[in-house]
């Protein structure tokens, strides 16, 4: 893969060890301006280490990184000027107020006192922390600290945003606000990379996804195979008991039909098969009210990749 973009993020063959622990072994990907890219992987797969390297805090042992065309190892200042980073740890200066925290952060990006004050007010407005603006940050809840952390990452209006677990600790309303905000930031032409465990959340947020496993990005073929594998679909009808007999009538064995609290579950391998199945149910007179995948796209791919480890012949490069 060639590094093609001079905007956005380009990562090729990046590797980083801590002593004998190989945190990142081989990650390559590109994230383009105007899109939200999800970084998906189990705990300890190297997501945070990768983000620390992108955020100019950690130097890679090997491989190359370009943030808007700048190398964070050679020219960290150029990267810092256009990159905003929201860490997974919610460190804040406990005795300072929300407003002061944002003002000082703006000053650290070279803004003068008046600019910093104006920017802090804008951001407090943007993330909805007016009521807490003049309270010390130690009184903030986890979700409120997340909002402060996001505001801090946006202080210098960065064109590249790195968000490490931005939704954790947020209540449902705040998650929706976050999603709308992140989509808006992307629509403004920013490059956004989001790591999260809340896969259902990422499904609605992200345009594309990079899957990492044991420090390496997973090949496109493996991702494609996992995406197209069988997954459970959830079916609901006005008369729930009418679903199972109709399914059996279409030739699905009884033991392949399950149920959970909100519907009947059946495993279907392709979208074509799902459409055909829905047609058959409707023709059989079942009054279907809901027919949808029981897992989100990202969750489905993630779970399938987890269940089927890399085969020896699989390339790990994109």
């Amino acid at each position, binding site marked *: 893969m060639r590094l093609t973009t001079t905007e956005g993020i380009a990562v090729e063959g990046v590797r980083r060890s*801590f*002593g004998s622990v190989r945190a990142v072994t081989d990650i390559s990907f590109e994230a383009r301006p105007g899109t939200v890219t999800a970084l998906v992987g189990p705990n300890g797969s190297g997501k945070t280490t990768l983000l*620390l*390297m992108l*955020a*100019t*805090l*950690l*130097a890679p042992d090997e491989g190359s990184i370009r943030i808007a065309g700048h190398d*964070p*190892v050679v020219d*960290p*200042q150029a990267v*810092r*000027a256009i*990159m905003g*980073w929201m*860490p*997974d*740890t*919610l*460190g*804040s*200066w*406990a*005795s*300072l107020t929300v407003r*002061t925290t944002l003002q*000082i*952060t703006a*000053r*650290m*990006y*070279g803004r003068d006192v008046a600019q910093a004050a104006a920017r802090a007010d804008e951001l407090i407005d943007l993330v909805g922390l007016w009521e807490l603006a003049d309270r010390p940050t130690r009184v903030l809840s986890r979700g409120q600290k997340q909002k402060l952390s996001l505001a*801090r990452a946006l202080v*210098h209006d960065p064109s590249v945003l790195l968000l490490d677990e931005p939704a954790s600790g947020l209540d449902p309303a705040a998650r929706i606000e976050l999603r709308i905000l992140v989509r808006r930031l992307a629509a403004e032409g920013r490059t956004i990379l989001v790591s999260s465990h809340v896969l259902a959340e990422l499904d609605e947020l992200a345009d594309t996804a990079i899957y990492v496993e044991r420090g390496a990005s997973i090949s496109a073929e493996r991702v494609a195979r996992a995406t197209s594998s069988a997954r459970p679909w959830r079916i609901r009808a006005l008369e729930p008991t009418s679903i199972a007999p109709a399914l059996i009538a279409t030739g699905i064995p009884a033991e392949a039909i399950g149920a959970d609290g909100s519907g009947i579950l059946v495993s279907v391998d392709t979208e074509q098969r799902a459409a055909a199945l829905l047609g058959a149910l409707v023709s059989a007179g079942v009054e279907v009210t809901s027919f949808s995948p029981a897992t989100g796209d990202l969750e489905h791919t993630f779970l399938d990749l987890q269940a089927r480890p890399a085969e020896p012949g699989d390339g790990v490069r994109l």
Partner: protein
Amino acid sequence: MKLWAGVGVIIGLELRQRVRGVAWYVLLGVFVVLIGIVTVLVGLATASFGGEDSGGWLYSLIIYFVLMLGTLIAPALSGNAINGEREAGTLATIQVTLVSAAQIVLGKFLAAWIATLAFLVASSPFLVVAAALGGLSVGTVLVSLLVLAVELGVIAAIGVGLSAILGRPLFSIVVSYLAVAALSLGTLIAFGLGGVAIQSEVRATTVQSIYEDGSDSYTCGPPTVSIYSAPRFDLFWPILSANPYVVLADATPPQFSEYGSPTDLFTGVASLVRAVQVPPDLSPEFDYCSSATFEPGPTQEETYAKTVPSWFVGLLLHLVLAAGALSWGIARTKTPARKLAVGSRVA
């Protein structure tokens, strides 16, 4: 970003965070009370000796007291400046901004220095009282204040440097205290042990008068030689020059009375340190017979005058230590980081 703009932002952050804490004001209050007690006690003591112009003693004692408390407080204020921020997860949020590692470390150092100098400022009313008692020279005031401020800065620099070099806040604070103890007490112990360990043989020749029975006439007896060993403190005096109290005393212009004795504590300490530069006489002759006149030894002022000052050596050593700690600290705060200390975290 311009160097001092970034340093200024960090100083502002640091002073807002730490100095506005309640603990700092409590310390400052306790400090003022202690200095007040010392001032009253020393004032009473000097008054009972009937001494006039006792301002020199009181002033030098207060300055020494500020140095002592300052060296006890500075490591606490500076010893977790960087790694404390790292533990709180806020160092990385500074490092991703346009503020450089040098600006972070220098800003933290200057803030710790300013916070420590506040203790000197808090003691100023008592220094004015001392000045009012008289006998204080302008040179003593200027030089001692300057050296005291520099020494407090050295401790702050060592503390901030160690907090960037060592991972754990508790560990770096303890090591800062050990550094202060090594300079303040360690130099005294090394000097004492060294002097006692290296001894030289002294061959003292004594001539006694021998009186004849029942008369005033006497003859001089044969010279007798006695052999004993003497500690060689003169070989180890340079160690003392690294002591901050000695630096302060030796740098201050000496103030002697008309009888050649010190009129403030700085001159007293400096005179003692200067006296150990004089090597012991390894073959003294004590003639109690022929030479009838008894010669008094040199006064402290005379000894002071013929020995060499050492304060600039000690001060230079301290400045090198401070600069070394800060530059090592800056190197360890630089990002992107290649090596990480064992057990440390990035963010």
